């Protein structure tokens, strides 16, 4: 069955690390640069996550995501460089337009943070099989029903997208136009989304019944199909990652 996933097969050490450790890593790469609020911490985390992405061998896959975000980041450089409220020291000028040092540094901090988030999340999504991720979370105590919801989303989206293709074809054959003036395009939205929603909701009802007859609501403790290999250093890594987070919070309040 087709599922929505960016997982890349691989044998790197990063692929072997357990999903929970990677999730904790993602959380600290988002939180620490914000807690510390320094250029150095943002830069350090970008370097670490970039190195890990290279080790995992998925750098080529990450580049398009980086490229997509870079367009917005260019506007961040321009706007902050020109108008950041702390702007004092002129840095360079193009004609009469002056870019300021403070704003550019602030833009740099934003860029470093965004790139490090992209790298660390990419690390998680390119090196972890979604089913392993969900299973690890359920083993950690996430409700198996929520676990079902997650894995089900990944299967439902490709399924719904193939329904969407059928709907587009059907409506086109009835003469619906998807190009042209704004009002024509907005009017085309309803005949497209309507059938897609109704058919997916009808499927929902059937899916609920199918789950019910398979004792989805049973209160017995769930067991796992895959025992799964446990990563040897998971505990050590998780404890050290969380200590780094605590240390950074303490440092922030001491200073």
């Amino acid at each position: 069955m087709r599922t929505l996933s960016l997982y890349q097969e691989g044998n790197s050490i990063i692929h072997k690390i357990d999903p929970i450790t990677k999730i904790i890593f993602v959380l600290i790469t988002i939180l620490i640069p914000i807690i510390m609020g320094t250029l150095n911490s943002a830069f350090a985390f970008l370097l670490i996550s970039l190195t890990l992405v290279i080790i995992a061998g998925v750098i080529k896959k990450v580049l398009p995501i980086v490229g997509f975000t870079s367009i917005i980041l260019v506007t961040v450089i321009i706007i902050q460089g020109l108008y950041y409220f702390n702007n004092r020291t002129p840095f360079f000028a193009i004609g009469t337009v002056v870019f300021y040092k403070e704003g550019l540094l602030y833009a740099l901090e934003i860029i470093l943070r965004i790139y490090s988030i992209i790298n660390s999340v990419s690390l998680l999504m390119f090196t972890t099989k979604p089913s392993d991720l969900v299973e690890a979370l359920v083993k950690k105590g996430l409700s198996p029903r929520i676990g079902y919801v997650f894995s089900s989303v990944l299967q439902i989206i490709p399924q719904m997208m193939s329904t969407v293709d059928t709907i587009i074809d059907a409506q086109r054959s009835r003469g619906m136009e998807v190009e042209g003036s704004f009002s024509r395009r907005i009017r085309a939205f309803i005949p497209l989304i309507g059938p897609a929603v109704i058919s997916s909701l009808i499927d929902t009802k059937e899916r609920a019944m199918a789950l019910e007859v398979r004792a989805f609501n049973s209160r017995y403790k769930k067991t796992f199909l895959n025992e799964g290999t446990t990563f040897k250093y998971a505990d050590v890594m998780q404890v050290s990652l969380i200590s780094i987070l605590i240390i950074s919070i303490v440092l922030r309040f001491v200073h």
Partner: protein
Amino acid sequence: MGKRSMWSFKFTTASLVLIPTAVGINYIGKFFASLLKLPLWLDSIGTMLSSMMAGPIVGAISGAINNIIYGLTADPISLVYAITSVAIGLTVGILAYIGWFKSWSMAVVSGLVVGLIAAIVSTPLNVIFWGGQTGNIWGDSVFAFLSAREIPIWIASFADEIIVDVPDKIATVLISYGIYKGLPRQLTSIYRNDDEIKEL
């Protein structure tokens, strides 16, 4: 038997399977919006529909899972906006419960409220992660304009977000309300809050 509170909810199988479908509908909405090159996101139709059908909690969970999945499969930054999606799910669910979705004009007002709340929740995130910008060209032009006049960043960023969010949320609420109204009773009745449903 009275109406049950909107917060009391049993995780029935029906409401549980509604969540992935809601996320899928969000995805399709976004897909059609870009197919038709509409200047709106329209990526929370599913969240809103699930809120209208099954209440604020199911809506909020749909919103959160939507952004987590989108963050893990397409755009990592959308992970942090899960908070906004939760707020949208809660707001629509509450408004639906107190009966704001009675007419098209009330739906417009509801859309305005949802848009404002979404903007209030998103603004701190925009400031923390993007220095106040939204990435939308119109909104960011306003942000640059206001920043150049030394308007405080929070206000400039809020204005930036409102320009983007309010029209999008009004449109999304109207579309969701239109679909909801057209749904057969057979589909909506399984989620209804007012106690046991008698079938003949």
